[in-house]
């Protein structure tokens, strides 16, 4: 196949422009995060020397460290919990026969139609009744079940040859051991893909923590950063930009680490 050189050149130009535009707000934030208080409010776009100072301000005065820790605990708890519960549920749906199976599966899938954001009013009342306000449980437990996870694992398990489960059973291997020793090792791509989606989703949550967390000690970083902007009078933009850059590192890291699994886990035509 001969490719047109000018087409490649155009592609390069278009992509470079796009990449630049897409990356620009991030580059801007990265540069501003290094500048001192006088440079940061000017149009200077050179790296400054105040990065550490800005990080220190954000970390200590603005409690960024505390917020990051909270976000981290919540996100890891939800990601791990969701994965485990989804694996168990998918195991039940694929390898067992039980009454009302289809109805129960429909009930799980239907939850995709009920965004949490719509339920905040009554969910808030429920959490208050449980006396969970201002606890991490309030932003972890309601998110532990995942229709997405159940659906993807079920789909993945159904592609695994039945003979494998049959053989495991004949060898006297119970369903949990089958899950642990055979299914999970065969599901790393799906697990990785789900982990990325769930990590990013939970880390980026904003509305629910804003509503349910009044205590600053427990607040997550997405809402915490807002407090940095809201200080009356002059916002310390250097610290805000440093905080913003730090707060995107964990999801970025997870994404980078699990990139392969992520694309393979969603390989739509993998059985071909």
């Amino acid at each position, binding site marked *: 196949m001969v490719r047109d050189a000018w087409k490649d050149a155009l592609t390069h130009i278009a992509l470079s422009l796009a990449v630049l535009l897409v990356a620009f707000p991030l580059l801007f934030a990265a540069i501003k995060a290094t500048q001192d208080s006088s440079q940061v409010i000017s149009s200077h776009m050179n790296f400054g020397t105040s990065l550490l100072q800005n990080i220190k301000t954000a970390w200590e005065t603005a409690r960024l460290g505390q917020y990051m820790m909270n976000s981290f605990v919540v996100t890891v708890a939800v990601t791990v919990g969701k994965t485990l519960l989804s694996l168990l549920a998918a195991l039940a749906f694929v390898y067992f026969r039980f009454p009302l*199976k289809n109805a129960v599966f429909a009930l799980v899938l239907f939850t995709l139609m009920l965004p949490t954001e719509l339920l905040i009013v009554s969910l808030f009342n429920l959490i208050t009744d449980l006396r969970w306000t201002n606890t991490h449980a309030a932003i972890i437990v309601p998110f532990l079940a995942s229709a997405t996870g159940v659906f993807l694992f079920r789909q993945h398990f159904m592609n695994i040859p039945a003979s494998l489960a049959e053989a495991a059973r004949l060898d006297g291997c119970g369903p949990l051991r089958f899950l642990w020793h055979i299914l999970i090792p065969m599901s790393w791509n799906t697990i990785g893909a789900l982990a990325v989606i769930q990590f990013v989703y939970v880390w980026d949550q904003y509305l629910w923590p804003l509503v349910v967390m009044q205590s600053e000690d427990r607040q997550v970083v997405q809402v915490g950063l807002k407090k940095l902007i809201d200080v009356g009078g002059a916002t310390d933009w250097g610290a805000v930009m440093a905080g913003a850059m730090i707060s995107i590192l964990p999801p970025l890291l997870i994404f980078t680490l699990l990139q392969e699994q992520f694309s393979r886990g969603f390989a739509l035509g993998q059985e071909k």
Partner: protein
Amino acid sequence: MTPTTTEHPPRPKKKNKADTPEQGIFKSRLLPWLFLLPSLLILAVFLYYPAIETLRLSLYQSSVFLGTERFVGLENFVELLSSPVYHQSILQTLVFMVITVTLGIALAFVLALLANRPIRGAKVYRLLLIYPYALSPAIAGTLWLFLFNPEIGLVNALLDSWFHIKPRWLDTPFLAFALVCGAAIWKSLGYNVVFYLAALQNIPGDILEAAQIDGAGSWQRIRYILLPMLSPMTFFLVFTNIVQALFDSFGLVDILTRGGPVYGQTGITSFLIYQLYLDGFSNAKTGFAAAQAVLMLILVGAITVLQFRTGGKQVHHGA
């Protein structure tokens, strides 16, 4: 509980019945329920129960301060549907949704096609395009707030030195609206490109090669092969992007414009979810907010049904 945006998966292909494991390999009456129990319990308590509560609350007028509830029937709905503020909020939410979903997906489609071409450095381009996936709406709002700050923001500094203008981005209704649209499109671009690239990489190259040998030009290959083959992904992305526009816009709006500036009856960026939050938590009108939630639920339901009706026909399950 799952249901926003970033969490929906693309729908994997259906397999033939014969390929799937014979259901019911392990025999037990109790075990499957035991495995399902944690998930079902959480869905019941934190999703189904609040959903039913929301329905109930929508029929009450409540006073958080007095801790009282009074049954008012459909009064909340009547009030909402006759409220000019709410009409405007619906309208601007729909406009925002259409703009961000169409432009966002079209742009991502083009970029994914380009980044999927076998050119040098394609891998680097791909990485740089999908990284913003990890960005949150709140962070997007924060960065844009600073960039477009009328006094000290970089955009106005440049506009001032080149054209001697300093637009009041956040106080001018149409500029603020455009700004929120731009930020939303920018934020979702990484997400959309990720999924399009994943789908593109699963299209067997021989199909395209065969088409090329048969004399199909680039445009024809896109129009008659790629577009139909990517349609399940487009279908998935339209749905998730609509949900994102409806709900994820909250963080962006809350930080960037706080629903403002005022235009007509209310703030021009006060979208439905923002209005719901204001009424539920700032104005403490629980029942009124619950009624809004019910209306939005109907909207989401209607969009889903419409989606599956129209989308179902176009979905092409590949070779």
